[in-house]
């Protein structure tokens, strides 16, 4: 089994480059488990790495920095929330993994089927668990999904970084837009305002 990372989930769902909104992990089972993959979104891996770098430096680095005009959140708490979020995604994908290899759900889907009062209810395992695991993270982005500030920061940055043509990203207008978005999220995440 491989734990990979891809630029797939914390994106704006543009076709051709990214796989769509809210897809933070992916399980690719194969008949040979050694060739199977659980991939975690690259933005999430980068956020964790930013956290490790912040811990090493003793000061906020990358997505662990606050927005313009806001104080950076505590490294330890942000790292804890980031790892919790990454862990939930991994857990979610492991459920799919288990459905494939342990329960032999290799058919049309790996739905959870529950017969109830004579009615067969069928829940899409992915969706069913996704609601529990991710809250409503995805599009539109909602910080109520109890992710971390670092994840929200990476998500916002990626919206403006994705390029799939030969145009040059930024700086015209984009800088104001990105800062405005980050400041909005900083308020949602209750980051402290900087005092002049």
């Amino acid at each position, binding site marked *: 089994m491989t734990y990979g990372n891809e630029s797939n989930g914390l994106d704006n769902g543009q076709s051709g480059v990214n796989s769509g909104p809210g897809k933070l*992990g992916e399980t690719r089972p194969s008949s040979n488990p050694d060739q199977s993959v659980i991939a975690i979104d690259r933005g999430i891996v980068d956020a964790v*790495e*930013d956290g490790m*770098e912040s811990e090493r430096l003793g000061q906020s680095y*990358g997505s662990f920095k606050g927005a313009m005009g806001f104080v950076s959140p505590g490294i330890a708490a942000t790292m804890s929330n980031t790892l919790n979020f990454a862990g939930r995604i991994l857990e979610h994908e492991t459920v799919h993994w288990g459905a494939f290899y342990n329960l032999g759900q290799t058919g049309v889907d790996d739905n959870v089927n529950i017969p109830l009062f004579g009615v067969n209810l069928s829940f899409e395992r*992915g*969706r069913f668990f996704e609601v529990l695991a991710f809250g409503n993270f995805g599009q539109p982005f909602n910080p109520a999904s109890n992710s971390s500030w670092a994840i929200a920061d990476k998500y916002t940055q990626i919206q403006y*970084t994705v390029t799939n043509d030969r145009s*040059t*990203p930024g700086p015209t207008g984009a800088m104001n837009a990105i800062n405005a978005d980050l400041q909005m999220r900083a308020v949602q995440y209750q980051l402290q305002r900087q005092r002049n």
Partner: protein
Amino acid sequence: MITRFILFAFSIVLSGASCFGQVMSGKEVNGKYLDSIRHAVETFYCQGDVKYQVRYDRNEVHKVVSVLKLINFITKNNVTVRQVDSGLSKIDFQNVDRRNDNNGLLRTTTVHGVLKYLSVTIKLVCIDDFVVTKKFVLVPTTTIRCPNYGNGLMDFKIVTDIYAKYIEYPVRVVDLRYLQMRAFDSLNLAKGSVSHKEYKYFTEQLSNRVDSWVNHFYTKQYDPDSSCCYSYVRGEKDMIQLIKEERYDVVRDLVFSPNYFYAISAMEAVLYLSTARKCPVDDQLKLRIEELKTMDFKIKVMRASDVIGWADGYKSLKTSDESVIGKYDRSLH
């Protein structure tokens, strides 16, 4: 006198060139483009605080250059797999991985090579030995420090100082993380198609260069990454679009696509259309459908929004004509 005339003529040519403006070479265009992105990254994303690797090992840079030169050779010429292999064998990779995947008549050879400063993936879609589609992904392996943005940005110094000096084919930066190039070789497609007359290649449509979604769709058949993913729930979206536009003849022809995934998608659309009496199934079509149902090329299957599996051929999908017709009916209404 003659020398004077030659000089005079030469000056006219030169002044003419400056009048009409000079045509920039591929390298110059790439250089300008990559420089502008580096500038945006440094000033915008990193806000002037960016640290690159100070020195690069000359021998290792030389290896990167040899890869870039090989890519130039592949993109500029109508190459065969043998020629590419011969070029690759001369490069001293730290690690090389090679995989072949068959998808109907198309064979995709993927070579992933790692150097100290470059991780390169070369995907070649071939008919027999003729390379039809060439895809390259170049990921600089050196890291940069940008405390404002954090991890994930590629090393734009090596990209502008070294890569840009050699890459001649138009390159694009994806997500500020890697470089990508894609080329399609219609001449090789024509050569490869000669000995496989049983397929339909859409060469005529591909050559008319009209910028329509259908033409992009014809080209996409030869892109290995576009063969994804079979869904039990929804009809293939391009087939749905073709049906909505009443282009039944195109759907019918696509059953004979050299790309197995496209062929089975079109086959399902034809099954639906035949019940709606919009596409008669003649003997030739019937034979092809039977053939497609028994072939065992790998199909990527979407089992949930984040679960992508594989099936060995259409029969292993264990679906029925009735459920396919129902799927298209639901997708269209």
